[in-house]
């Protein structure tokens, strides 16, 4: 099969409507395979794909890292991790046996040419053994500073191939976020990568896009005209997007000190959620159409003015309580400077200047060490004009559609009802749809869907270069502003609370308030 996007092969055995991805055989190489992500997410995802029949019939996976270990040791470690972290339990040993027979480990340094040369020979052997046909998928599960080096080495050692140009094999790279630290570094990284790879070969992973509930967002909007008709500034008062985490930074102190919540959550995950909520209907479900609409809406976001930059709320958690458990503050965490000014909380107000959203504020907040773990999108509608009920009867509460991304995945609709009785009293009530209750099935994990799509060559659920740059164009001025202006005194919120009081003022200025999630 050629790697160019020519007319797809019409398999006479393939039925319309049956979702069987007959994917090409391939080898996946995970750089940085001794890191946390491989055992917690990537290998469990691959195992579950194998279990569900979504991996190619001919597939192999190679862990690439510095530490010395044998194939068997790597397989044993992955077996333990999968037993711990897989969404399906217990491990099906028949499936594991076949899966493990295609699992290997390659010890080498990222900057060592001999390591890449021996990798190339090893992968050629695997092609013979497993029939993987020279197709390569490289997952860069490494600190971002290694991306340029690894890609350059892969190219030098002919481990990645030019896209198109009659090449029968394909090669793709998956890059974890963050993609750069700001706009200049993101552009530099992009320019470097473009010397070796075409955009079609680059898969920028944002695992939020692989979540079942995030995908349901597009289906919810565009297959239910009843809601799409209201999805505009005539009916919506404002939108709140919340990503709150109960956990602190754990052992990620090194990483978090360089990143902060803006880079870790807001610039990528939250902007993906915002773009899916705000985008126009695509012409079709092809990757290019969906991505184009997302970029359009991101480019319509009003840049933050000097005043706007100053109004963005940043916070850092201090000691407090999560449930009944006392927890330490951010500055006491491992690998965090005692005088660190890195933010663990961000809240901001954005506006989208287009016909659909003019005048509708989008309030975003993300934070660590909050009372509970929740990711949700709340669409708050305009209140009814107070015509039905005069004088002494309270106004009806605003309707709301709440899309719960995690946990308790589902959608709820809040509306008003009359309380039974002789008097007209109103009570807000909720209609609730819970995924887990209705379908009685554990949906695939985000990484399963994303890896499956990447192997199939479908980049719909991966961030495009345009999306990434649009997001960095919006937030780089904010990062520059923070760099040149003193932060508020940190810490400024207790762990276990809903963030600094400035966040309440941010939304309170317009007479609104944060939802209790």
């Amino acid at each position, binding site marked *: *099969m050629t790697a160019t996007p020519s007319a797809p*092969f019409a*398999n*006479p*055995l*393939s*039925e*319309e*409507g*049956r979702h*069987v991805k*007959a*994917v*090409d055989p391939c080898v996946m190489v995970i750089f940085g395979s001794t890191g946390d992500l491989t055992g917690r997410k990537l290998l469990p995802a691959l195992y579950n794909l*194998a*279990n*569900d*029949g*979504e991996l*190619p*019939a*001919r597939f192999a996976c190679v862990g690439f890292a510095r530490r010395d270990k044998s194939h068997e040791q790597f397989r044993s470690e992955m077996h333990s991790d999968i037993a711990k972290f897989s969404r399906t339990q217990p491990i*099906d040993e*028949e*499936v594991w*046996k*076949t*899966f493990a*027979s*295609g699992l290997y480990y390659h010890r080498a340094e990222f900057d060592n040419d001999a390591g890449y040369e021996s990798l190339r020979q090893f992968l050629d052997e695997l092609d013979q*053994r*497993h*029939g993987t046909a020279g197709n390569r998928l490289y997952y860069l599960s490494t600190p971002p500073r290694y991306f340029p080096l690894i890609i350059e080495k892969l190219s030098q050692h002919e481990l990645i191939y030019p896209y198109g140009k009659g090449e029968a094999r394909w090669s793709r790279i998956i890059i974890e976020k963050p993609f750069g630290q700001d706009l200049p570094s993101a552009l530099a990284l992009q320019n470097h990568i473009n010397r070796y790879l075409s955009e079609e070969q680059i898969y920028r992973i944002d695992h939020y896009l692989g979540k079942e509930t995030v995908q349901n967002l597009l289906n919810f909007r565009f297959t239910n005209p009843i809601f799409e008709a209201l999805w505009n500034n005539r009916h919506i008062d404002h939108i709140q997007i919340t990503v709150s985490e109960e956990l602190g930074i754990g052992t990620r102190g090194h990483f978090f000190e360089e990143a902060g919540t803006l880079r870790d959550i807001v610039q990528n995950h939250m902007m993906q959620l915002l773009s899916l909520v705000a985008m126009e209907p695509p012409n079709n479900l092809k990757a290019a159409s969906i991505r184009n609409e997302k970029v359009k809406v991101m480019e319509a976001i009003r840049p933050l003015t000097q005043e706007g930059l100053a109004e963005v709320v940043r916070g850092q958690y201090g000691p407090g309580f999560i449930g009944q458990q006392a927890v330490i503050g951010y500055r006491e965490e491992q690998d965090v400077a005692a005088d660190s000014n890195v933010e663990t909380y961000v809240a901001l107000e954005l506006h989208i200047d287009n016909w659909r959203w003019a005048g509708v504020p989008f309030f975003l907040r993300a934070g660590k060490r909050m009372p509970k773990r929740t990711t949700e999108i709340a669409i708050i509608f305009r209140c009814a004009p107070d015509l039905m009920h005069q004088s002494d009867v309270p106004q009806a509460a605003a309707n709301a559609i709440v899309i719960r991304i995690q946990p308790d995945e589902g959608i709820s609709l809040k509306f008003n009802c009359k309380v039974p009785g002789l008097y007209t009293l109103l009570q807000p009530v909720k209609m*609730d749809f*819970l995924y*887990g*209750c*209705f*379908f*009685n*099935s554990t949906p695939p994990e985000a990484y399963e869907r994303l890896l499956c799509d990447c192997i199939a060559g479908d980049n719909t659920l991966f961030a495009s270069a345009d999306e990434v740059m649009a997001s960095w164009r919006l937030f780089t001025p904010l990062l520059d502003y923070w760099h040149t202006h003193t932060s508020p005194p940190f810490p400024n919120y207790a762990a276990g609370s809903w963030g600094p009081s400035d966040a309440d003022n941010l939304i309170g200025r317009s007479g609104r308030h944060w939802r209790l999630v």
Partner: protein
Amino acid sequence: MSPLCLEKTTSPDKAVRASLFNLIAYQPHRYGHYALNEVLENITSKLPCRSICISMDPSARALKIESIIHTLQKDAYPITCEQINIVTAGADLAKVPFALMPHLLPDLPIYLLWGQSPLADQTILPALQKFATRLVFDADEEGGDWHEFSTRMLEHLQKSPLDIMDVNWALIGAWRDAFVRLFYNPQAIEQLSYSQKLSLIYSGAVAKRDATESIYLCCWLAAQLGWTFRSFSEKAEGFFLEYSHARGSVEVVIAPQAQQAGGETALLSVDITTGNQTHYHLKRHLQGSTATVHISRSDSCDLPFTLPLPTLWRNLTYMKELFHYTAGSHYRNMLYQLASLPR
């Protein structure tokens, strides 16, 4: 002063009432190796639905209706739904559609789970099919006369607007997907089209009813690959067919193996020798939802690998196969091939 606290009280478990669809099940008899009540039980134990079960009791004096509250427990959220049983002696069968109509939940799909082919019943089905979303049936009720069944079913499909799903067709869904995964490029399809031998082993006896899944798979391949039917014979060892194509002929053997299938599907293994002498052996694991694939050529062998072969009740496979996927052009093509078999 005592601390302010609420008295601990005992309250019934909170539950949510919900339904995804209406399911009307009708089983006048028990047929074949796959009883429809197992299908019903599997569905209602996994998904909340309003189920209405129609059964026959010759001793019943009058139509009897009773309802049962059914609870599915999923983590902290128990879901309740209703099961309504309608029992009839047969004489008042015509009343059944009227009896069940008030109990259908509006705005939700209505699936008919039928214990006989739609060609048989003329009492209840015509009254229901104008409301129904889909009819799911087990064709083995026709007594295994493939020619008769397929000919009449093709006529029925032309006339009836009701969407249908044949349970035996759903049961080989995973096998059809396995073929798509294995033969995924033009070269592989070309070699498959010029196959020389095809062997399907199933669990059961040399009986048409037991071999239905296998014959469906064979006819599907023949239809999609453009094979022309030549001959059919039934012997003590099994069923023997021959098809022809541009480069020769395909000898097909469908034979039983005295072995418990270990699941609801009877097809145990498939062997194919393709046009370029590549031999594929797919063998289903009796436990679990996988098959082992061995591919060998005259001068080499591939390492065996596992291909998923999900059973109907694995995760939400049944929901896709029975309620969402359509028995479209491939099913019709298969029926045309089936109709070419002698009576």
